[in-house]
């Protein structure tokens, strides 16, 4: 592509891609489809974090909201930017082992080899774990509520982890904006760990270096056995297929339509100002019930809670989706509803659109 054409394209699109980055990978997760099965978590873990020192890491995790999350209390752990100028970072904290949740030891040997008839259970110290508060949620019967929130690195447009590293060991790669840790440059200072407001950079306690989600870049580069391109494992392995993967600046793709046109896919905690490139379709829930079991027109998930998570855009996003649902119910057509269903005409994974450049 010539420079002129590139300039033309830049003028045509309003997509805010980071300086020095050609295209930006992005993901949309539809929270209405997540069943909390953790298949994404295990797909990721078995690919990338099974070696010594990374036992506690879940580059992909699924947490129950409302809830403490993983690591515990990450939303209040600091990091991110003070202002939209992206000049001053907010200080952050490094979570400790207890916040991440230690791997528990079980009484397998007693039961399997020593004839003990006690039940299988953790030996001791089982007081917190990545999903300790799973399905707990909030609210009182009959109006309790919760939903699942799958999280990976947001591969932010303004990554505060990158800025936090005094050695430039973290970088946002030019071709697709994936944020990576150069293992040769990293000296284990952990400023990235504390600087990421999502706590999605992890310290490997054996290699003494930091690691993070790599958006399965070998898969999207076609490094597999047959040279095929695959979406990240967390997306491909998802039973309800709730994730779309592509480029934010691919204007024909579903991600661009959902994020930029319909504005129904929203970043998590935009107030951290890192401009995430993972977006969420906010969750719907049935209306509240009276004690007699009748449904009333009151949000089960408090709207303010969703605003705290996804910003003020959540009201309009939910209204837009609701309007399109109504249109389809009445026999009309809706591109938005098709995008959000499996008859998605724009393809769920679009990772090769810029391959010819």
């Amino acid at each position, binding site marked *: 592509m010539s420079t002129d054409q590139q300039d033309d394209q830049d003028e045509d699109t309003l997509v805010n891609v980071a300086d020095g980055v050609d295209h930006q990978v992005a993901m949309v997760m539809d929270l209405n489809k997540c069943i909390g099965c953790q298949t994404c978590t295990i797909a990721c873990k078995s690919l990338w974090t099974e070696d010594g*020192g990374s036992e506690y890491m879940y580059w992909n995790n699924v947490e129950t909201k409302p809830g403490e999350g993983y690591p515990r209390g990450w939303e209040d752990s600091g990091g991110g930017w003070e202002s939209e100028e992206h000049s001053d970072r907010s*200080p952050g904290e*490094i*979570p*400790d*082992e207890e916040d*991440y949740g230690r791997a528990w030891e079980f009484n397998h040997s007693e039961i399997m080899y020593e004839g003990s008839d006690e039940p299988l259970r953790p030996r001791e110290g089982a007081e917190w774990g990545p999903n300790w508060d799973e399905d707990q949620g909030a609210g009182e019967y009959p109006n309790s509520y919760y939903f699942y929130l799958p999280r990976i690195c947001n591969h932010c447009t303004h990554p505060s982890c990158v800025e936090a590293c*005094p*050695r*430039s060991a973290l970088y946002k790669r030019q071709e697709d904006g994936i944020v990576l840790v150069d293992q040769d440059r990293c*000296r*284990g*200072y*952990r*400023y990235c*760990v*504390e600087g990421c407001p999502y706590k999605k950079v992890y*310290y490997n*306690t*054996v290699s*003494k270096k930091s690691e993070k989600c790599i958006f399965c870049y070998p898969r999207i580069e076609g490094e597999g056995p047959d040279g095929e391109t695959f979406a990240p494992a967390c997306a491909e392995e998802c039973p309800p297929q709730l994730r779309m993967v592509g480029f934010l600046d691919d204007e024909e793709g579903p991600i661009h339509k959902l994020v930029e046109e319909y504005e129904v896919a929203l970043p998590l905690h935009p107030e951290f100002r890192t401009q995430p490139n993972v977006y969420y379709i906010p969750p719907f829930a049935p209306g509240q019930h009276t004690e007699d079991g009748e449904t009333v027109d009151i949000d089960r998930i408090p709207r303010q809670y969703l605003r705290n998570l996804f910003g003020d855009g959540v009201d309009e996003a939910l209204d837009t989706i609701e309007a399109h649902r109504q249109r389809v119910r009445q026999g009309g057509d809706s591109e938005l509803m098709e995008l959000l269903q499996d008859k998605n005409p724009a393809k769920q994974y679009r990772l090769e659109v810029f391959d010819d450049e």
Partner: protein
Amino acid sequence: MTDHRRTLALTAVLAGLIVISTVAAPLASARPAHEIPVREVSDANLDEPDADGWEAVPASDVPLASAPSSVPNADDTSIETVDVQAARTDERLYVRLEWHDATRDMDASATREFADAVAVQFPANTSSRPPIAMGGPDNRVNVWYWSGATGTQELLAGGAGSTTAFENPTVQANASHAGTGGNATWTVVYSRPLDVSGENRTDLRTDGDLDVAFAVWNGSNGERSGQKAVSEWHYYPFSGGPQGPPYETLLWTIAGIAIVAVVGVTSFGIYRTRGVE
């Protein structure tokens, strides 16, 4: 007349003493502030922190202060001074560093755990003095680094954030932590052969002064990277006997001449007054 002669002689002796004391004394006594003596030794029993050979090597107290750095909490450092000794044999340079640290932080295998560390910095090219903060792109530094968690590294840096480890390190270090509480100290002995191959390594056979600086990290205070206690540039006087900066000698000489002149003029005044009588 006898009185006059006696007064004159006394004045001359006094003036002579003053000249000797003012000019000679400062050169012979106090070592220049940034000089760290190096003992030239033939015996090389210096590898270990508690080796006997160190007893005969003079020590210098080097003050430390928080390094200017953009990392969070850069001002929060806890080590205020490091005791430095240096000795050179025909084959190796030995540097021994000792500082107080109540906790022995040897590990970085928990997410919030940092190890104690210490470093010695030299110019990679001894012909000029690099910027103190990890050198500069055109004026690099060699760093001898030891950390409780990762051991010894020989590093090259050309400015903050550029630190890179040599693949085949030539620096050795032995460390020990002794004592408890406020009296607990770390002692680390570095050594490197004077003759090593490869580019970007400091020439330790230099006949000129060798610039040197020091840094200490207290792991239990979260110190790492630019959050460290550092010294200013000091130097090892490989050029021979102790030498102060020339302006110091110059100032003392001027002061001495001035004192002699004042004493002389005063004596002459007294002499003339008495002569008039």
